[in-house]
């Protein structure tokens, strides 16, 4: 079966500025694709093109077999779209607004009421249903935007920063909602929150300067981290100097760094090529008889991977400095 979303060579130029420089990918049913990237990377522009709001300079976007530029109405019918900033008519109430969107989507009568009711329930809007949208908090406005995108239970969902402005509980709620819908839809979300990628996305794509710089599962991205499979270790008392020297000398160990968390006395043992080194560390600790309060294997850090991918390497220093010698 064809993928629900097919993007082929999308390019967008604004005058001399090339905002999106040839992005291609497909999203299958059941996939949740996360767009990651710095501000101005071209994430929103790409989403606007997929949603049919912006005409691409080159390339095409196909939703459920309908080319967005050739059969816009057909493509828009299968799409639920939350634009950046979740715009909604400020003088309308959520009830009136969702009813309007539902009517445009072709529902009427009891089916319309059922759809609106379901969407309201899913994003927990019932308490503000009859207040003008302009009087609502940022979190409620975002949820109104989500409700209108979900109203017709679309096969393709494009959500530009769906959890922006929500508090941690609401974020969790929206992520659960997305996970719950993921099985029978193709979903693209954009976010600045790296933990969100881990929480909801089956696949992540890092976009910067209008091109895709990385594309893989969150686990694959994390594996690029220099902290991938590093061992965090904190001694109960002062760490015996010999232990660290001994560990640092192991051929699979790249180096040892102090923990960068505030007030943390632990160290991070970095591995070469992400090899598992916890056995090495454990056996050294045991043989030296050091008292260890905490020892665990790190998965890696998405934020560091994100920085490495998206920041152009500074010429004055190496992009990935080899950690200096151990400390005690």
């Amino acid at each position, binding site marked *: 079966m064809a993928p629900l979303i097919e993007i082929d060579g999308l390019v967008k130029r604004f005058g001399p500025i090339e905002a999106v420089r040839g992005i291609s990918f497909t999203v299958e049913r059941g996939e949740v694709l996360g767009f990651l990237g710095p501000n101005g990377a071209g994430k929103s522009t790409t989403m*606007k093109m997929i949603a049919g709001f912006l005409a691409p300079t080159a390339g095409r976007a196909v939703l459920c077999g309908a080319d967005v530029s050739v059969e*816009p*109405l057909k493509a*828009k019918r299968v799409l639920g779209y939350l634009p950046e*900033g979740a*715009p909604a*008519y400020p003088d309308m109430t959520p009830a009136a607004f969702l009813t309007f969107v539902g009517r*445009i989507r072709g529902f009427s009568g009891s089916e319309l009421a059922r759809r609106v009711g379901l969407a309201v329930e899913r994003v927990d809007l019932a308490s503000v249903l009859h207040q003008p949208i302009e009087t609502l908090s940022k979190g409620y406005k975002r949820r109104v935007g989500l409700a209108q995108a979900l109203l017709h239970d679309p096969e393709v969902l494009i959500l530009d920063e769906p959890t922006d402005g929500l508090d941690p509980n609401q974020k969790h709620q929206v992520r659960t909602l997305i996970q719950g819908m993921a099985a029978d839809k193709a979903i693209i979300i954009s976010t600045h929150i790296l933990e969100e990628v881990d929480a909801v996305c089956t696949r992540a794509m890092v976009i910067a300067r209008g091109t895709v710089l990385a594309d893989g599962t969150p686990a694959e991205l994390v594996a690029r981290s220099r902290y991938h499979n590093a061992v965090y270790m904190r001694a109960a008392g002062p760490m015996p100097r010999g232990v660290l020297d001994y560990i640092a000398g192991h051929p699979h160990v790249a180096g040892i760094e102090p923990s960068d968390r505030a007030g943390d006395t632990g160290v991070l043992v970095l591995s070469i090529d992400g090899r598992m080194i916890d056995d090495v560390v454990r056996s050294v600790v045991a043989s030296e008889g050091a008292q260890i309060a905490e020892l665990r294997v790190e998965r890696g850090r998405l934020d560091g991977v994100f920085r490495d991918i998206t920041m152009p390497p500074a010429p004055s220093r190496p992009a990935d400095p080899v950690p200096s010698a151990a400390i005690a």
Partner: protein
Amino acid sequence: MRAIAIIFRRELASYFATPLAYVFIVIFLVMAGALTFFVGNFFDRGQADLQSFFTFHPWLYLFLIPALSMRLWAEERKTGTIELFLTLPVTTAQAVIGKFLAAWAFTGIALALTFPLWLTVLFLGSPDNGVIVASYLGSFLMAGAFLAVGAAVSALTKNQVIAFVLAAAVSFLFIASGTPIVLAPLQAWLPAGIVSMIGSYSFLSHFLGITRGVLELPDVIFFASIIGVFLFANTLLVEWKKAD
């Protein structure tokens, strides 16, 4: 058609969701009345007709209609709702027509509320009701033409004040294009044929023709085609400017 009707309903309701509708209608009625009685010398003329009422409509519309049309697209772009609106399964043409018809219906409501003037002349004498009906229809058509101009201009900018000023300026050219204000400077360097063609675009002369009691087909076609042309331009402008 269904989509246009749904958009029409939402838009028309949105006028009444804010004080805009009430302010507009009150100002329109007060101004129309004041112009009729104080400037148009309704009583001194001693005639049971509404000539002194309709004469001022082009000038009333000149600044009241842009006040209505300025928000149509500028506000939609400013608040970003245009991105939501135009990614719903509607065509740009349906969106343009739905918004226009709602604004036009709203001016129709304001115009209809001037009916007490008609009752007044009916009470005072025996007016030619045919002329009055024709004048109302002509005024409504002309309001549509002003609105179509204003709606198209509103798609050009995110700034409602700019939309207002530009719409008023373009509308003024359409009112005055049959008068020496516009024609005299053109006569110096344009052929007579083109000058008279520009003169024929005057809202004023077409409207005055109608208020004399003859709702002639050419005048109706004139206003209808102005509406059509500007709605078409509106659609192109929305497509062109929507994402700026």
